[in-house]
């Protein structure tokens, strides 16, 4: 059901909530925020804004006739005050700050939706990344753009060995999730949480925890992994690629990091750069409302990773 909105204050009232954007690579979050706020205020000002409230003047004197006149109110005129909607009026906050090198799904909240971003952050949703690397060299920043400080051979790395290393890392992280449960490892609750489903979500703030590691592509020297984790950041993912190569007795550099899923939000939900305007953002807020409603986790154990995230990718 399409609703046509022509009046700016009506659009402003609808501009409250959490929405999802595709952040391009090489763009900082601060820049993204400025671009979005600029676009929103520009679009709002293009709609029919609130007209100036007329000034009521009573002219004349008590002895003569008093005349009530409605005059032009310059104190409320847009050419005097400036555009009705200015960038500083719009509140925009993000759930997680993505690094300049990471592209992908990014959750933002506008106006009263900024409280929603707090809720999204606290519910510790699982994020999935596509991380690509290249064997054979390592740089000082652990990313493609750094200065190469070491080169090594990589022909001994096979798909099976990479898979076994990934399983070791994954098992190690699942094991360490036990510590961050917030429960005593010797207690009955810890036993029940672990034996029920095996995968547990930390009860308190934890270091980055990896839940799933999968090989998407293996084409020596390049490889691509799908990493599902919580509490991570760009530096951690770069270190992950680097440490993976150390375990395989070679060197690697991270070439690409792309967030493809943030809890229930996937690439299908996120807005491309060309769609960063008022109309599409309002649409996105509406589409994100049902996803946002049930994201608070109920128990310590991750009941079925697949059910927590939406079916489509």
């Amino acid at each position, binding site marked *: 059901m399409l609703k046509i909105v022509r009046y700016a204050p009506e659009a402003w009232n609808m501009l409250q909530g959490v929405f999802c954007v595709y952040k391009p690579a090489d763009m900082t979050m601060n820049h993204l925020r400025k671009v979005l706020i600029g676009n929103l205020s520009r679009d709002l000002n293009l709609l029919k804004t609130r007209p100036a409230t007329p000034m009521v003047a009573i002219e004349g004197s008590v002895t003569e006739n008093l005349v009530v006149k409605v005059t032009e109110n310059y104190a409320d005129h847009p050419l005097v005050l400036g555009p009705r909607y200015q960038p500083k009026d719009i509140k925009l906050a993000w759930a997680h700050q993505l690094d300049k090198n990471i592209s992908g799904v990014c959750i933002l909240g506008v106006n009263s939706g900024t409280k929603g971003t707090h809720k999204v952050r606290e519910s510790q949703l699982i994020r999935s990344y596509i991380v690509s690397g290249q064997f054979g060299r390592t740089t*000082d*920043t652990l990313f493609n753009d750094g200065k190469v400080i*070491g080169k090594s051979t990589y022909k*001994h790395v096979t798909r099976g060995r990479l898979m076994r*290393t990934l399983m070791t890392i994954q*098992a190690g992280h699942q094991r360490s999730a036990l510590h961050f449960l917030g429960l005593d490892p010797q207690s*009955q609750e810890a*036993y029940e949480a672990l034996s029920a489903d095996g995968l547990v979500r930390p009860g308190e703030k934890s270091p980055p925890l990896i839940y*799933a590691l999968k090989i998407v592509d293996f084409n020596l020297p390049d490889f691509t992994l799908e990493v599902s984790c919580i509490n991570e950041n760009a530096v951690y993912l770069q270190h992950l690629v680097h440490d993976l190569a150390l375990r395989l007795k*070679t060197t690697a550099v991270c070439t690409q990091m792309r967030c493809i899923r943030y809890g229930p939000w996937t690439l299908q939900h996120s807005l491309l750069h060309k769609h960063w305007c008022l109309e599409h953002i309002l649409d996105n807020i509406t589409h994100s409302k049902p996803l946002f409603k049930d994201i608070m986790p109920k128990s310590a154990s991750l009941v079925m990773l697949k059910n927590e995230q939406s079916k489509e990718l």
Partner: protein
Amino acid sequence: MLSQTWRHFITTSLNKGLLCNGAVSSLGYHIRGKKRKVPKPLDPHHADELPEVEYVGTRSQPDKLVYTWGVANHGALGRPSFIRPDKEKRQYRLQFMQHPHRLAFGEYHKVTDLTCGYGFTVFAVNKTPEASCFGTGLNTDSQVGGHQPRRDHPLGMLISPAPIEVPVSKTTNVIKVAAGRAHTVMVTDKEGVWTVGNNAYGQCGRSIITDEDYGKQTIYNRIRILDQLDIAQVECGQDTSFFLTKDGVVYSCGWGADGQTGRGHYDNEPHVGPVIGDIEGEKVVKVSCRADCVLAVNDKGEVFGWGNSEYQQLNSVTNEMQIHTSRKLKLPGVGKVVDVAASGTMCLLLNEDGQVFSWGFGPIGKGPEVTYSKTPTHIPSTLFGKNELTPDAKVVSVTCGINILAAINSHGCLFTWGKNPGGCLGLGHIKDQYFPVRVAIAGEVLKVSCGVDHMAALVREII
């Protein structure tokens, strides 16, 4: 060796402060006050002259490593610096090694088999000119050989592995080892089965000599009865020895006060002979005994038990405290059994679907509230790594010590639980563990052996 050069490369080049976010000076160390907003553009050919290092050849095979952990005071872990630390090298005395520690002995030797006794460890090694069997730890009864650097002063404890000089020819190799409280059994490929150590109950397979001083005189005994037989597995209980032939017959000798020799009486048994009872005529594939209760599995998946039953381990067939002849256990709902483990108070079995069942008394693995079970109860497979991300993980072998239980799954992950004296479970703490938890070892665990308060594992690297 290879790993040490790798660590050297990483600590020198990378840890010189280059791994920081943001501006990095090309010198490799920070210069206070001099920052660049925009990093200097890189020369596109700057990497051309760097040497390409080959750490691993294309066709190299992964090594087998040895990890030990647990109580370090008795020298069974094999690292001398735990007991005789070198102050110049900043080493300190270590009482408990609570997480797996990689033994240097495994880097310099090709270890094919290892076993833990009560306070000592024995390794069977391939291709050395000196000996093919090494041991470390307590040596009060010459269980790890006779070592007298000074005449008439035998060493009561070894702190690093030393060769056990079994009197066999240089071309014969020890292929299997097993160790009990104070004795060791070694199977060679060409010259039969040898035993050494304490013989107070006849566990070495020779007649008991009263008041024999086992530490002063090391007697290596070759068990002649087993010369013609092909030995598939050896196992040692507390003071008993078991030998399983490839035909499936179980032989035993040693202490029998709980009937664990299975020979029909409760006396000591210094002569090696076959176990009697329901097990006669069956083709046994595995025997397990670490204390005084014995379980055996045949090729059809049926379990036989004899020995101590004070903790209701054998209560499916008897209410008595001990039985001295083997009986076939009635274990319904368990499926075809492929592996068993019998510790002091708890028993484990593994069926062909990879499910682990445990019963007995103590931390059997079902949480802190379940302290005993008379019948085998299933331990949830999610605790052994089977979850929605790895649905194909199943347990492939189970082992035990006196009060420690261990299982290895199909991905090579080791899970331990039970009592935890001195951090011997390898989980990083000294508290008892009531359900299986994975031990952090980076590699595929091939074999693990548990003693009273230490464990040893043979691990294959991934690369």
